[in-house]
């Protein structure tokens, strides 16, 4: 098991090398002139050249990549050409906010999607099934940013129940930073007042984020449950008198969930890169907002950094999913 994990982690290296090369190349091949911006509005050509030199942008692409790759290993992820802050430092500031949002959304999606999919499969072709199909198609079709705007309009502006945007009230200090995830920090430090506030802020963006994974998980769960329900062992279990509840919630659920797990993993990775719009709408200080700002200023080091960060998490989450899949599925040997 441990050897398996180590081997998988080792496999991460070529993926990251490939990913960094790919993104680095794309970034460098694109037109655009961030140097000019970094040099300031009144820069002379000499200033521009000096900035280009400072960031190594005057060197051949391959040399630039080599510098970048070796820097990565030393923990130097480059510097934002715009703010001149180290990218790694920024990532460590923004990542927890995004992780918190994505985790909350996934927890919602899994907690609702799995039972909903199970029920849809059990009541296949009857009204609960049609309802869940229509709702999930609707949820997939709803642009997250539009939904976010509607939420703001309804729950924050008109009803005034929940905060409009942000992670925490400005004039209050957030719970002491342990993980950077405010809700968890609040729990760890036993500050339930802060937990309540953090959850209020989390609610709308997390719900807006959760809809499309919720819909997909429901559909996947429905499909895999239907498949499992047609398996011979379910007939055997019924033939030997096991109760409907026991068959469904014990024997069928475990099989169906392990089939749905892959989708959950993929979606988790996908959501990490998909928070851009929701973060924009809710002014949520996470990776998406950071990436958007970098994109708008064509600041490539942060973009490459965000991409690598998300890519790494994507691979790690999939490793985790494979491990859980192995736990749920004894036929899979993790070696």
């Amino acid at each position, binding site marked *: 098991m441990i050897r398996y994990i180590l081997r998988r982690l080792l496999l991460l290296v070529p993926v990251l090398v490939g990913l960094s090369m790919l993104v680095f190349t794309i970034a460098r091949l694109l037109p*655009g*002139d*961030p140097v*000019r*911006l970094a*040099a*300031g*509005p*009144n*820069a002379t050509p000499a*200033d521009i050249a000096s900035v280009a030199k400072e960031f190594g942008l005057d060197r051949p692409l391959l040399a630039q990549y080599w510098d970048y790759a070796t820097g990565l290993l030393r923990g130097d992820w480059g510097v*934002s050409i*715009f*703010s*001149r*802050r*180290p990218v790694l*430092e*920024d990532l460590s*500031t*923004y990542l927890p906010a995004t992780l918190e949002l994505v985790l909350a959304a996934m927890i919602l999606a899994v907690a609702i999607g799995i039972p909903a999919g199970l029920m849809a499969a059990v009541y296949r072709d009857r009204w609960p099934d049609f309802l869940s199909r229509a709702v999930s198609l609707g949820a997939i079709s709803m642009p997250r940013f539009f939904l976010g705007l509607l939420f703001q309009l309804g729950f*924050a*502006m008109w009803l005034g129940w929940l905060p*409009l*945007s*942000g*992670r925490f*009230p*400005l*004039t*209050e*200090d*957030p*719970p*002491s*930073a342990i993980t950077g995830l405010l809700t968890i920090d609040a729990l760890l*430090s036993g*500050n339930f*007042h802060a937990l309540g506030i953090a959850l209020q802020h989390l609610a709308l963006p997390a719900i807006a984020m959760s809809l499309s994974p919720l819909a997909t998980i429901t559909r996947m769960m429905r499909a895999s449950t239907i498949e499992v329900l047609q398996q011979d062992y379910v007939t055997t279990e019924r033939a030997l008198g096991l109760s409907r509840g026991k068959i469904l919630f014990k024997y069928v659920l475990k099989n169906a969930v392990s089939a749905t797990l892959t989708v959950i993993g993929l979606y988790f990775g996908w959501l990490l890169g998909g928070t851009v719009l929701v973060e*924009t709408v809710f*002014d949520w*200080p996470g990776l998406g*907002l*950071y990436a958007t*700002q970098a994109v*708008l*200023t*064509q600041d490539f080091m942060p973009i490459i950094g965000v991409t690598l960060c998300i890519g790494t998490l994507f691979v790690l989450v999939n490793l985790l999913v494979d491990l859980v899949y192995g736990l749920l599925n004894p036929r899979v040997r993790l070696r």
Partner: protein
Amino acid sequence: MTDMTRRGILAGSAAAAALLLVGEGAMAQSRRILVLTSNQDIPNFDPHLASGYSTAWMMRNVYDSLVRVEGNPPKPAPLLAESWTISPDGTEYVFKLNPAARFNDGSPVDAAAVVYSFERILRLNRGNVWMIAGIVKPGSIEAVDAQTVRFRLATAFVPFLQVLPWIWIVNPRQVEANKGSDDGQAWLRANVAGSGAFAVRRAEPGNLYELERVAGNWRQGGGNLTGAIWKITRETATQRLMIQRGEAQIALDLTSEDMDTLKNRPGVDLLIEPEYRTFQIKMNTRHGATMDANLRRAISCAFNYQAMLDVAGYADLMTGPLPESIDGFDKTLQPWRTDLARAKEFLARSAHPNGGIKLTITHVSGLEQQRRWALVLLDSLRALNIELEIRSAIWPDLVASCRSPETLSDFFPVYQTANYGDADNLAYAGYHSSRNGNWQNPVYSNPKVDALITSARAEADPEKRRALYAEFQRTVMEDACDIFGVLERRKLALRNTVKGFAFTPVASNAPELFPLSLG
């Protein structure tokens, strides 16, 4: 190194937070924190790299400069310098420093610190250095004694006192101690070595910056604020809602529609004041169809100024290159106004008497007001049978396109904000050919205009200066190098709990915290 200090700040605030939890209610009472919402981040705390109003806000509160600016019209007032004398030819300035001035680490703000700071900004050659570039040369500043600094200017520069608020004085001891290989840039990026009344308490890049009043600062008195938060709020609608809900006390980037919505809301004060922030649509005088002055004149006559004003909301139409309120504005100037018959006359004299051409405008993507004006231009040009292609680009690309007449679009809309209340600021930056290739004046070049600007900036006699500027304005108008647009009024919304706010038409969106109180 820098990581550690940044983490230090965070850890400090965490500890403070833990303390706060103990006596939350009681302490919240004594905290008076002003929240400002703006859409601009503060990317860097180095005062000598700073540009942009967000950074200016932080710098003017955590650092001090020789003089500050106050009043309307703006006037220089003492800060670190208690008094100053100017030589008759306007090239020598001697400042007497306030002996009470102390950096926040307790060391005195002396002449050496002033020299060090000016030398450093000149050496780095970035940020606000352009305000004194060519005027203050390295080595020309002299610490006469601990309290006296003498500047020998390379050339007379009338608005010198006006630019000084934007050159901040750093603590040489702290910077030298953390100098590194880059003149302390890495350290100053996240640390403050100043004498300002406020210090950084919490920094969450891209989200918020919190300042707190320094207990033992050399300046005492002022308002009752214990701290302030610069909250980055990218949507103006959100800024407005925060003011409405009392979550913020000052909103800095509101649109005219936002102001209309906030009108008559209880607890909200609106401030709509003229400021030196001009908007023009520059035309490419060196490339393409717009090289033709008659075409430019035709366009200037065809443009729908009223529609421009309508979509701008709280703004005034400009008459020429200079705002009416600035000293040197020529009241007899005849503005270009919508007159289709005249436009057609000019068009008939141009190389394209029947139109039938296609021009392009490139505006800053995401700037809603510019997008609207581009739409107005598109609509106006149709009367001349000229098609308009509207493009948007990010600011760096636009800046890059200014490098040569070939890469510049036919129309280039641009805002100019006066950093100092003098006609020279707008005239020199916007129309002097030495600025060609630069976004403020990408292509326009007229030797006569250059000569007028150069003589005016060194002319000490106000009457002669006004005459020079009048001539400058007439020439530029005749050239029709720009569509002279609007002067947008500064639109601020404040909760009525904010006391002590006095409007100054310079950098009013980066207010000084020292005099402010929350009631």
